[in-house]
């Protein structure tokens, strides 16, 4: 049933409502506080960045670090705030340390292991951000990149299981004739033998197609190797696989620091790889992950 009151009947349904950016807890009605999710968000940021700004990015994940790099490339003064001691912490401390050095080397002020405690403004516009360390930072533009929340409010009372997204099986099916795809889908991955919800760009394409095929009766389990990339300064960072909290990381460096491959192992099985300017070699490692997965699946 739509807000307009109109009822639409279905024989088959695919839910792909995605996620919403998590707002800053300290968020107020001040101008100059942004999130980045939609085309309109991107346009608003682009227009704000047309003139020189003191930019403060909250969140040192993939989005936060990439935005910081882009803003720095546009000549902004940039401060990047992350609540862990390393940025991109899911990729292990070695990548985290390299990314931190990369940003510092490009003139970004890093404030790690801290969080935002207060956002203050003047004349309706953001002016100052206070950190949990007690430090006060001036800012004209604040970008919150602190994760997202599955858009499932509308499903309350629907009978579907909503728990960190919409739970579905290995075939992306949540209930008879109801399938789920994309950021909102919490699915059972047969290869990794665990539930996962993937917020990466490629998953929208891959899972959308898989859910549609299965709705039409294909009955194929969805077993992707998650893939994410981020271009920051002169570095192309790419990652295949998963990076569990109990993963063990090891980095192979070409020697001069310009290229490396970091592997993530779980129970002696290769489950993820991260490439630093190593696009072709990484594809070979992806194949190893695929083979390891199907050995035990």
């Amino acid at each position, binding site marked *: 049933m739509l807000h307009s009151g109109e009822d639409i009947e279905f024989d088959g349904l695919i839910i792909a409502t995605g996620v919403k950016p998590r707002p800053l807890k300290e968020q107020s009605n001040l101008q100059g506080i942004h999130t980045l999710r939609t085309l309109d968000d991107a346009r608003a940021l682009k227009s704000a960045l047309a003139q020189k700004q003191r930019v403060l990015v909250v969140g040192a994940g993939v989005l936060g670090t990439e935005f910081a790099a882009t803003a720095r490339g546009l000549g902004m003064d940039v401060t990047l705030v992350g609540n862990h001691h390393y940025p991109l912490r899911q990729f292990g401390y070695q990548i985290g340390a390299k990314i931190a050095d990369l940003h510092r080397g490009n003139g970004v002020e890093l404030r790690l292991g801290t969080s935002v405690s207060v956002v203050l403004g003047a004349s309706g516009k953001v002016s100052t951000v206070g950190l949990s360390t007690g430090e006060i930072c001036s800012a004209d533009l604040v970008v919150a990149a602190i994760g997202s929340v599955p858009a499932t409010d509308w499903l309350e009372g629907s009978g579907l299981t909503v728990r960190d997204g919409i739970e579905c099986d290995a075939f992306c099916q949540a209930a008879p004739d109801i399938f789920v795809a994309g950021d909102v889908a919490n699915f059972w991955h047969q290869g990794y033998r665990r539930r996962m919800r993937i917020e990466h*760009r*490629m998953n929208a*394409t*891959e899972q959308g*197609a898989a859910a549609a095929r299965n709705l039409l009766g294909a009955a194929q389990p969805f077993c992707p190797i998650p*893939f994410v*990339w981020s*271009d920051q300064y002169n570095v*192309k960072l*790419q990652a295949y696989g998963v990076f569990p909290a109990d993963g063990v990381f090891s980095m192979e460096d070409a020697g001069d620091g310009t290229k490396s491959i970091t592997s993530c192992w779980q129970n002696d099985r290769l489950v993820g790889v991260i490439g630093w*300017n190593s*696009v*072709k070699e*990484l*594809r070979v490692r*992806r194949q190893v992950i695929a083979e390891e997965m199907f050995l035990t699946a």
Partner: protein
Amino acid sequence: MRVLIDQNKCCGAGQCVMVAPAVFDQRDEDGIVILLDAEPPPEQFESVRQAIRVCPALAIAVEE
């Protein structure tokens, strides 16, 4: 079939190379797409169409 690539759009994800390695490759230094075969034989058509579907940057097109 004539394959068209847009290197300015390409983000170097390499998805095309995984599904159609006879048609696409990546530059060593930055992973940007290179075309190995601009007019592939019919047995490659389905792989090329798959590459178009999976390209995250919509950087591949064909003229048929």
